[in-house]
């Protein structure tokens, strides 16, 4: 069966867009083929800086013929209906229709035969549409045609389209189409500098091989493998190790068609700069890899660049040029770092009073002061030294105004740590500069040093409370201030460090501290903030537990009790509840409680009243009623004391003892007794079952 070869040859495509574009091209073409009834055997797409390429093999040469029977109006039906049927089916006369009988009568049937078209024609129709509608993140117009309406847009100017179709053993056909003046053909071009001549291609294999000969490695994975292998070899040849960096490798492979790894060096003096700064300088600005010494684990004064050509001098000029640029960049970095070291972190703080954090939340300076106060309040809860915590919160953000962080924002916190250590701060205080930003996401590490934990909590809760107060809550997919991440951070800090705290109380303290500032323009009433934030925390906790495989309905069942704002206890309770519901006792008690709830719901609706209040023992008519009442009393008492002792497993075992009495009650007792007083009393008893189970959870929220 024939294969399709498609190449879209353009000016340099941004590296970060190439992988998705190749994938989009494969998906769009194959989806269209399948929609046209052309089921293919396989497809692969590739990208280089100058081309997107696609091969689809095993495409049928023709679409299958379509045969369709369409049922029409009744024989002898109204004339307009028959005319409409002829029009819709393309029949010349109603005599061409078959007549089919069933139990409803006789009907006209049209047999429509649609012959399949050659795949070549179908391709000529779908490919230009795909080029026209290709989903680049940003596209542009160019050249003289850009003055006309409807001009083609592409990521950068598109120069040539190769599109051939045919079996591998034969000379293929060119898919005949053009897009905004670009005719599809079978001519492409080699490497921009090393083999720029036109190349005539036929099939994918021939295409890939001819490109290879013209110094273009088509497959991005092959380019990555080459770069990685060569870079490792270069490093190892000098007994060093390449510092691997997948993100950089992906990017670099998108900047070259013919990768040539080369090693350069810089002055050893620069190694006095922290490794992370050297790496950020060389990586971000120059897109080069750094190299470490396995003996020390530290960087060495080497770097590896990936050129796009085999230079006539073996790369000497290229290495020398890159070394010059890296020397200048590292000089800047060293200058920044040394300049930073000359100013104490605390001396940078006054400037924060000039920097607006958010127009409704005042300055960064005010925020730092708040975090300081709040961290000090949290410190005792997490076992942190109050003075150290205050100091840590005082300095934690100061590095934001350093030169190095200005240049490399991703080094925020880390530089703070280096500068704090350099000015002789306590190790915990220094560490908090870096750690208080953590955890940044579900996979990030949670700090454990109590000083860092206190500052991290204060920082995140202040953010949440602030944006809640000015009503900038996340909505749908919009969360510009990363508040979901902050809330998840708080949850993980609390749970993973086993911190006991009433969130409502903590949030309320934060709210009053925040509102003391004149600069804060709160939109929400202070009293509404804490409960609304607690709901947000509950939602995040549900997501978190669900991601860990726990049941989110159990979280609802616990929060629904009200007053549950100690996350650690909530989670412990959820765990105990989950275990209990896995037992027979648990399942049956849940079923019994739900049954009681259902009966109550019906009867409450019928009588338009609730059945609160204690049942009257004198109205018990059967032993099962008395036994249940007794069991409820006992369970209530014991479960409450177990809960008070935070022994949730114990509370659940107590609950289990309720089960036989509940089962027996439903077995032997008819709730809707003819005597209205007895009926009411029995409904009150059912209500008591519900009340008793509420010692551990709201069973009505638990899904079966």
């Amino acid at each position, binding site marked *: 069966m024939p294969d399709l070869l498609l190449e879209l040859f353009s000016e340099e495509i941004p590296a970060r867009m190439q992988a998705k574009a190749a994938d989009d091209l494969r998906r769009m073409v194959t989806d269209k083929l399948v929609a046209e009834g052309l089921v293919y055997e396989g497809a692969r797409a590739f990208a280089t800086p100058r081309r997107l390429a696609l091969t689809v093999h095993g495409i049928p040469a023709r679409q299958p013929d379509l045969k369709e029977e369409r049922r029409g109006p009744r024989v002898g039906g109204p004339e307009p209906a028959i005319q409409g049927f002829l029009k819709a089916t393309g029949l010349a006369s109603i005599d061409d229709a078959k007549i089919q009988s069933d139990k409803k009568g006789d009907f006209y049937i049209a047999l429509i035969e649609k012959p399949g078209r050659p795949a070549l024609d179908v391709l000529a129709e779908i490919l230009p549409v795909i080029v026209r509608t290709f989903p680049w993140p940003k596209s542009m117009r*160019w*050249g003289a045609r850009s003055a006309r309406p409807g001009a083609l847009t592409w990521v950068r100017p598109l120069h040539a389209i190769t599109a051939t179709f045919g079996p591998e053993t034969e000379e293929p056909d060119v898919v005949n189409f053009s897009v905004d003046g670009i005719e599809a053909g079978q001519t492409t071009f080699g490497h921009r500098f090393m083999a720029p001549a036109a190349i005539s291609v036929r099939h994918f294999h021939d295409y890939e091989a001819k490109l290879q000969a013209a110094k273009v490695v088509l497959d991005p994975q092959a380019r990555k493998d080459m770069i990685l292998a060569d870079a490792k070899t270069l490093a190892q040849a000098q007994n060093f190790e390449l510092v691997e960096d997948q993100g950089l490798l992906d990017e670099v492979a998108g900047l*070259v068609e013919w990768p040539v790894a080369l090693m350069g060096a810089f002055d050893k003096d620069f190694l006095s700069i922290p490794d992370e700064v050297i790496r950020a300088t060389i990586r971000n600005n*120059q897109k080069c890899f750094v190299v470490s010494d396995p003996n020390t684990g530290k960087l060495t004064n080497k770097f590896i660049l990936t050129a796009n050509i085999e*230079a006539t001098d073996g790369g000497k000029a290229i290495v020398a040029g890159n070394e*010059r*640029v890296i020397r200048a960049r590292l000089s800047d970095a060293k200058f920044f770092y040394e300049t930073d070291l000359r100013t104490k972190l605390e001396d940078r703080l006054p400037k924060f009073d000039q920097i607006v954090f958010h127009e409704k939340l005042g300055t960064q300076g005010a925020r730092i002061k708040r975090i300081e106060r709040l961290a000090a309040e949290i410190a005792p809860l997490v076992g942190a030294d109050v003075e150290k915590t205050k100091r840590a919160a005082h300095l934690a953000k100061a590095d934001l105004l350093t030169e190095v962080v200005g240049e490399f924002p991703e080094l925020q916190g880390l530089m703070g740590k280096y500068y704090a250590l350099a000015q002789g701060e306590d190790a915990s205080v220094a560490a908090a500069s870096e750690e208080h930003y953590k955890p940044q996401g579900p996979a990030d590490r949670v700090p454990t040093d109590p000083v860092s934990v206190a500052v991290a909590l204060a920082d995140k809760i202040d953010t949440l409370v602030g944006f809640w107060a000015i009503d900038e809550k996340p909505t749908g997919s919009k969360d510009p201030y990363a508040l979901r991440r902050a809330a998840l951070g708080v949850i993980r800090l609390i749970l993973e460090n086993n911190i006991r705290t009433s969130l409502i109380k903590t949030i309320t303290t934060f709210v009053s501290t925040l509102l003391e500032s004149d600069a804060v323009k709160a939109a929400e009433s202070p009293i509404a903030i804490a409960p609304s934030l607690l709901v947000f925390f509950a939602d995040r906790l549900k997501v978190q537990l669900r991601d860990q495989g726990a049941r989110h309905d159990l979280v609802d069942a616990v929060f629904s009790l009200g007053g549950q704002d100690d996350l650690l206890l909530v989670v412990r309770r959820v765990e105990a509840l989950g275990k209990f519901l896995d037992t027979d006792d648990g399942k049956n008690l849940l079923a019994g409680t739900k049954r009681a709830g259902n009966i109550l719901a019906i009867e409450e609706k019928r009588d338009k009243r609730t059945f609160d209040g204690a049942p009257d023992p004198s109205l018990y008519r059967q032993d099962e009623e008395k036994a249940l009442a007794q069991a409820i009393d006992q369970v209530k008492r014991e479960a409450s004391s177990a809960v008070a002792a935070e022994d949730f497993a114990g509370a659940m075992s107590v609950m289990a003892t309720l089960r036989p009495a509940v089962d027996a009650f439903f077995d032997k007792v008819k709730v809707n007794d003819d005597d209205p007083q007895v009926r009411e009393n029995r409904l009150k008893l059912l209500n008591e079952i519900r009340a008793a189970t509420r010692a551990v959870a709201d069973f009505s929220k638990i899904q079966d």
Partner: protein
Amino acid sequence: MPTMNSLPAHMRPERSFQELILTLQRYWADYGCVILQPYDMEVGAGTFHPATTLRALGPKRWNAAYVQPSRRPKDGRYGENPNRLQHYYQFQVILKPSPPDIQELYLKSLAAIGVDSALHDIRFVEDDWESPTLGAWGLGWECWCDGMEVSQFTYFQQVAGVECAPVAGELTYGLERLAMYVQGVDRVYDLNFNGREGAEKVSYGDVFLQAEQEYSRHNFEIADTAMLFEQFRMAEEACKKYLAAGWREGGNQREHLMALPAYDQCIKASHVFNLLDARGVISVTERQSYILRVRELAKACGEAWIHTEAGRAA
């Protein structure tokens, strides 16, 4: 055009800053560009020259090249930084419509100044360009030579709030960087300016070091902010006044007769804003509003321009 090797040493583009400029001028003149002289006002970049900002608009062909001294008051370092300057040169090429071989034309211009693409690693690295003050954006690249950014390459999509139809290609060469590269010099002030050696040699520092020191002092410490605030206000007002005065209802189409003088005032406001910014007297929130005010002027000038003889369809 004489080949490089036939030139005396001091006239070669890799030996002198001025020859680098002259070589680029000759190259683009040979292509058919109008070789203009720098605009006679203070601007932050070659793009501000009306030969780019305004001429990029409208359907008429326009190919031009020129050197533009560019002032970035904030980038001054008192002459102490090896490559940061508050005043430097850009070489600007604008080709409308962008020719299909514009990348090749650019690469050949590099060859003309001595950058051999068989020896050096030349790359086009994604760089989307946007000028908030000019209400302009385009897509293109930073052009790298052995890891150093030597030019900006942009296909203008919109300028002064007006869609470019057709699109113009803009090439901006960072002349000092290129010269440092081809001369193999690490400090901009060490560039050989005139290509002579010994007593006859004039360096970039001889020409500009004192200016960098003086202007850094001026830009950061002394510039009269009260006067500058007033100048901003006056330029803004004048721009609006000239724009309002320029409109004519001629025949069946609106016409504008004073887009260029109005645009001068927009350039003026932009530079005054840059000076105020360097002096640190504009807060973060005010900054945004100043940028918006300049953009409004630029957009109004763009709108006026496309109703002038040079800016509209024949």
